[in-house]
């Protein structure tokens, strides 16, 4: 296990460098004035602010040096400063708990419901299968910010069952609806992959061995089919966090939850570039770390990967 962990960690480093470099290139090194780009086309920036920013981002240095300095700042916890003067790290510190609760809620709903639906569809076939396929198609097809609106109107405004705006009601009440909506962004993929994976699992030769061993139906299903089939799903659950993180921008915006996504949502119309880029970078780092953990978990589950 040791060498495997080391290998995965080492492999994550170039990805980290690559992602930050792509962001860096797009934001600071594209043709045109990066300061103006950050501020958006319609913003008027005073020359003194522009000069301060130019120095801060070392725009007078060669590109590689600039990137190096940017990366050093990043790893030291410097994500830039909002045009309002507030450091982005401060904004993050204030808003991450909301996003963590929302993301966590949605992730659990997605994992549990997605896996359960996928397993049922594959094992039961027939009507259950058709229903799951239809439902996931619908969930894939209807853009989920549209779903967010509909949920908000139907459950919040018309029925008044659950809060549809803000976090005053606290966890879990305030997070149920947005969590459900957010979970929809990855749930169809999880359910579908689980379904195909279990179908493949059911057809695997070693399942016949398990039946021939005289094990009970449940033992065969859970120990020899589902357990093996969930291995690829685990890796999708990591990737799905990407959908969730992107989705928080929309869901927190629509449901008025003051998390990281909400900060991006409100910063965009205000053309507060540093906030968008800073929090965006933060979300990328979170995504990378979670996927590293998922990779390690994958190794635990599959000895063929771990032992090579």
């Amino acid at each position, binding site marked *: 296990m040791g060498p495997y962990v080391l*290998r995965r960690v*080492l*492999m994550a480093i*170039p990805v980290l460098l690559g992602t930050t470099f792509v962001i860096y290139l797009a934001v600071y090194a594209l043709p045109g004035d990066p300061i103006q780009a950050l501020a958006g086309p319609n913003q008027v920036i005073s020359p003194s602010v522009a000069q301060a920013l130019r120095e801060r981002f070392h725009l007078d240095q060669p590109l590689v040096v600039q990137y190096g300095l940017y990366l050093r700042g990043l790893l030291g916890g410097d994500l830039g400063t909002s045009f309002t003067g507030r450091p982005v790290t401060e904004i993050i510190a204030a808003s991450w708990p909301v996003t963590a609760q929302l993301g966590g809620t949605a992730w659990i709903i997605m994992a549990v419901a997605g896996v359960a639906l996928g397993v049922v569809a594959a094992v039961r076939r027939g009507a259950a299968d058709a229903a799951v396929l239809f439902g996931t198609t619908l969930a894939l097809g209807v853009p989920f910010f549209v779903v967010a609106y509909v949920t908000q109107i139907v459950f919040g405004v018309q029925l008044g069952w659950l809060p549809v705006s803000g976090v005053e009601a606290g966890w879990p009440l305030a997070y149920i609806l947005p969590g459900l909506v957010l979970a929809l962004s990855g749930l169809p993929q999880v359910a579908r992959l689980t379904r195909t994976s279990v179908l493949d699992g059911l057809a695997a030769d070693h399942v016949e061995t398990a039946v021939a061993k005289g094990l009970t139906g449940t033992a065969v299903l859970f120990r020899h089919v589902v357990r093996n089939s969930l291995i690829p799903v685990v890796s999708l659950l990591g990737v799905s966090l990407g959908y969730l993180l992107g989705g928080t921008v929309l869901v927190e915006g629509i449901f008025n939850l003051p998390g990281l996504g909400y900060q991006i949502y409100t910063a965009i119309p205000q053309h507060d570039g540093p906030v968008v880029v800073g929090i965006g970078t933060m979300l990328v780092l979170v995504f990378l770390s979670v996927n590293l953990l998922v990779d390690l978990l994958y190794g635990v589950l599959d000895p063929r990967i771990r032992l*090579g």
Partner: protein
Amino acid sequence: MSRTVLRVTDLVKHFPMRKGPLRRTVGVLKAVDGVSLELRAGETLGVVGESGCGKSTLARMLTAHERPTSGEVDLLGRPLHKLRGAELRRARRRVQLIFQDPSGSLNPRMTVAASVREPFDVNPDLAPRGERDRRVRELLELVGLGPGHAGRYPHQLSGGQRQRVGIARALALRPEVLVCDEPVSALDVSVQAQIVNLLERLRAELGLAYVFIAHDLGVVSHLADRVAVMYLGRVVETGPQERVYGHAAHPYTQALHAAAPLPDPALRGDREAPLEGEPPSPLDPPGGCSFHPRCPLARDTCATVPPPQVEVAPGHQVSCHLAG
């Protein structure tokens, strides 16, 4: 004695094994490790060995599908692996490979006729455009397929028919040598016999020479004039068919014969104890004679000194300390 069409000298193929994100070389897989062979016109050379002995890699080097690490394949007096570009393409027409898996060796989206026609299309000098369709028909007829098969796709054919198409395609180039890499292993016994008969007939009619590679001693014994036995990338014994089958001198060849179940219940019972263990990994072959860990007759020297090649009878060579 007829002329030599294919001469293999000290052929070596090592595959570096790479691992990790930096693709460091962590070892060398010695697939073929110093093989020398000779094939004369009209002759069939059988190559026998178990999985991992390097026989398929050898086949791919003989037909220029793979470049050797060192050593040379001399085809009709020309060094095959020193040739490049157009010269190489011309030379490799003379030696064609017949694949093991007849369904994998045909493009699923090409009809039988298109597959057999491809050699003419890529080598325009073979036949003028107007004659190609006729040549395709002739070739199909030659391997026992009627005009009705020409428009079919591979999945519409049986395994035996697919193998016939592969043979027809190879024959389009008028080769002198066919290297057959387990051409009948994937087929049922009754179909196997059809293909074996076909190959025999083609050899007689077209004067072909074969390198016939197999793990099945029975088929090789039926077809081969001479036999080479491979173990871990080396030829351990080579000689005329009746010598290698009747007077096997290498302990591994003897063990192979002993292990092959014969289709005669009367012979049951008087078989020797099977060889112990399995062939070691070609990544880390044993020193000295590579067979010594499994050899029932091994002595101390076998573990340290590579065996010399001994001629035990005219044309019958064995690499073993105990031979001779």
